[in-house]
């Protein structure tokens, strides 16, 4: 089989000239397409979708719009252009030139970082695969598909690194990415948030708001890596991640907008009979997604994270903008600790608290959008405010594993938790209600009743543009 590589797999890594890489990708690509067919968006192979494709990394190249079928999407491999004379910015190798080839002594660590990141990409496609059948509009359907193909491309980006730098082990790991599946009891995805169900569009927007934002912070930390190919891959992925969060934030904002409109119109909080999602339900979904995403950052005190940092493999968010020595052997950071029935702060070595710091950055960023939602609510004169729950709430990793807390962070007993859980986390009734609203709307320009239209269409197209054509 011969492939015109630059046509089939747009890239700036010279696949055509690299025998090793060609062999690896030739074997992997059919498996990937099979995976897309089996576990990608359901029954979508024949749709024409108005998608953006990255065909090069320069100014005009990364956003190429046109109607195409998803299996024919050109999943490309792009690294952001190299920075000349880039130096490692942190850890014990600080100031040394970045590694353009794999540093052998950190092979295992880098492989683990890449596999963990890579595993989340196809996971989200699997989690979202049924949403197309119940889309609120063609505009949203197209956005879903755009996110999906880009997550697919992110997988390609990580697989490229495995193939290009990790030999036989790398090929095996690349194969495993297609064998683990979200929610599969036998071969689950590595991180728990990527095994949860995403079966309705409120969950989807929450996912792209919270989980993809986790992605942003992980990618940003990896974009600081001293392993230059990883850093450059992640920098390019960040441009796409920004769009995913845009989908999430505008999605939630439009739902909030619609709910507030109905509340005003009927002068009531009890809006469910009018077919929109009440604000307390939205708050419960926020509580759920935010808390499971906090887990994604790992233990508050982590040797692995410290090692990754010291080794120069994974930095902090916007490392170069932080004003310190970037070695951290003498600094401390505050992490929570449980003393009796109280949560207190305790100082640990900043090195081992790298995860906690990234979680804080994530939390701050998450709150910004929440405040924008609150602004919409205020503008409608509604008396309600969304709040992110406390770090102690509903956690499955780290210090707060095994304790129960209210969204305000007060530690409580199991009995109170059982009694009040449904106030704070969506009970089945919430999911059932949200599911009842999920009737597909596929007429160009029309929106489901529970969501307001977006401010504008995509890439200058009108709102009633036929973003997806079913045939």
């Amino acid at each position: 089989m011969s492939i015109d590589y630059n046509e089939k797999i747009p890239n700036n890594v010279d696949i055509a000239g690299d025998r090793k890489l060609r062999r690896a990708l030739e074997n992997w690509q059919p498996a990937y397409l099979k995976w897309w067919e089996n576990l990608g968006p359901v029954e979508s192979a024949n749709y024409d979708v108005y998608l953006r494709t990255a065909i090069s990394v320069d100014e005009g190249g990364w956003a190429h719009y046109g109607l195409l079928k998803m299996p024919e999407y050109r999943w490309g491999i792009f690294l952001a252009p190299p920075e000349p004379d880039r130096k490692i910015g942190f850890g014990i190798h600080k100031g040394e030139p970045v590694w353009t080839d794999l540093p052998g002594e950190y092979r295992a660590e880098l492989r683990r970082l890449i596999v963990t990141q890579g595993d989340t990409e196809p996971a989200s496609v699997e989690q979202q695969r049924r949403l197309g059948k119940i889309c609120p509009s063609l505009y949203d359907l197209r956005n879903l598909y755009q996110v999906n193909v880009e997550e697919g491309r992110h997988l390609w980006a990580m697989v490229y690194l495995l193939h290009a730098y990790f030999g036989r082990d790398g090929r095996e790991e690349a194969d495993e990415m297609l064998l683990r599946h979200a929610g599969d009891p036998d071969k689950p995805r590595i991180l728990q948030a990527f095994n949860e169900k995403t079966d309705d569009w409120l969950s989807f927007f929450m996912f792209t708001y919270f989980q993809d934002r986790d992605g942003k912070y992980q990618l940003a930390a990896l974009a600081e890596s001293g392993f230059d190919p990883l850093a450059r891959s992640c920098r390019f992925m960040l441009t796409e991640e920004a769009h995913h969060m845009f989908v999430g934030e505008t999605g939630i904002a439009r739902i909030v907008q619609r709910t507030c409109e109905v509340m005003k119109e009927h002068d009531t909080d009890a809006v469910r009979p009018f077919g929109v999602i009440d604000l307390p339900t939205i708050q419960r979904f926020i509580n759920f997604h935010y808390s499971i995403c906090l887990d994604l950052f790992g233990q508050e005190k982590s040797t692995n994270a410290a090692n990754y940092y010291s080794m120069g493999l994974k930095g902090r968010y916007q490392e170069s903008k932080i004003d310190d020595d970037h070695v951290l052997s003498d600094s401390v950071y505050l992490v929570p600790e449980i003393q009796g029935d109280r949560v207190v702060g305790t100082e640990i070595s900043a090195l081992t608290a790298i995860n906690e710091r990234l979680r804080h950055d994530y939390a701050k960023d998450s709150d910004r959008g929440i405040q924008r939602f609150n602004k919409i609510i205020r503008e409608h004169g509604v008396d309600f405010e969304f709040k992110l729950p406390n770090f102690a709430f509903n956690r499955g990793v780290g210090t707060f594993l095994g304790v129960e807390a209210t969204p305000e962070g007060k530690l409580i007993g199991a009995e109170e938790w059982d009694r009040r859980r449904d106030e704070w986390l969506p009970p089945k009734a919430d999911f059932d209600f949200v599911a009842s609203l999920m009737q597909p709307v596929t007429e160009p320009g029309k929106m489901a009743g529970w969501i307001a239209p977006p401010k504008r269409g995509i890439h200058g197209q009108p709102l009633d543009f036929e973003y997806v054509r079913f045939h």
Partner: protein
Amino acid sequence: MIDFRTHPGKYKHWRLGIDGRVATLTMDVQEDGGIDPGYELKLNSYDLGVDIELYDAVQRLRLEHPEVGAVILTSAKDRVFCAGANIRMLGLSSHGAKVNFCKFTNETRNGIEDATEHSDQKYICVINGTAAGGGYELALAADYIMLVDDGSSSVSLPELPLLAVLPGTGGLTRVVDKRLVRRDRADFFCTLVEGIKGKRAVDWNLVDEVVPRSSLEKVARERASEFAAQSKRPTGVKGIELTPLRRDIGEDGITYDNVTASLDRTMRAATITVNAPKEAPPGDPGAIHAQGAAFWPLAVARELDDLILHLRFNEPDLGTWILSTSGAPDMVAAADESLLANQDDWLVREITLYLKRTFKRIDVSSRSLVALIQPGSCFTGTLLELALAADRSYMLDGTFEGGNLPPAVVRPTGMNFGPLPMCNGLTRLHSRFLADPSHVETVKAESGNDLDAKAADALGLVTFTPDDIDWEDEVRIVIEERASFSPDALTGMEASLRFAGPETLETKIFGRLTAWQNWIFQRPNATGEEGALKLYGTGNQAKFDTKRV
């Protein structure tokens, strides 16, 4: 003070469940339940406290549960089997504590293999998540290893690449000597932090089987039932109860029902005395079962076992153990007879095996062992093994002036010719007479005979036979001299001389542990200020002295 006595009702880290012929031993380590402060037992990592419970459970399964033919060893933690010995704990431990800890954990794993091999109680390890380092080594002690096939759970021995030390519980040896993994593959595996999973783990024989997560429990139960069905352990009989050990610890001594130790802190010596039974132990199985934990051979095994561990961990300064016995040789001979005549009885067999393991524990203890054979002693059969385990023995020729006891004798019994082998697989007598193994037969011909000092000396059973004029000086000199030598050099010398003869899995494990691991533990590359073990967890990276030694 570290106490090795526990029971299932007190376990913090394990659950022991029995369902018919299958037992399940579930590891669920309590993070804040460390035996010392300063570390958290995350991810089912273990410390001495966790292993004390494991040892207790393994012992009880053998003696309290004759019906159990298969034991499932698994973890209650989601996606985590066991992360091995807690690294932070090791980092905080003194060298001596680390060595003691490793020795004890090794003995427990050897005990698991002993159960499989000699008691037909098979261990099946069900690895339901990551098994790293000591976690995989625990699995290696089992007869059959199942690994969940979930695309991420692996088995690994990451000690070398991660911590600059070696796996401390026989991992390297078992990989090549028990699982017979090819050495080049083993080399690769033992430098791989993330380990090996799935099909390759089976292909390389690192595990026996991989099983999907959803059917893991079911398949494990099936395998366990198959193993249990093949086991010759009896059904429909009751085990005995290992009642709490009575022990009294004073400033200068420790007293059990049948064993005492007196501690001489000036001479840095402990005198361990085993007392013969007052009356002859019963000879028929029914009566032995009725006595249960009070049956003298079992009581002595338990008390000696506990005492050795107590002295090893809590009295490291007492460098010499003086081994002595007291009581009537006939009573010990009767006890031996009741063991030898009932070897087909499950309980008697278990007790004999327990005695074997206890004497092995003495062999590998890093203490100078001196046996004193004096009037009133009973170095007969089982207790003669104490004298044969000693680095040297002194037997009084004749009697003490003014003493009214008859001269000391030693008496071989059937127990000295097979049931109590050392870890090299040979009896102590065989190991003693490697130059002329037929000499063992000469000794055997004297079974049942009381041998006085001259006869014992002629047969080579004792080292020196001073008379009462020389006795006190000779004994004092050996103890004072021992106290004046370097304890390290003594430990090395004694261990080198004790295990002549063939190598076995056990001798290799202990030999390499003491030689390689304990050397590496002392080296700056591991435990220096910039050593890998020292820095692990801080995020700082080790700096190695790159010269090969």
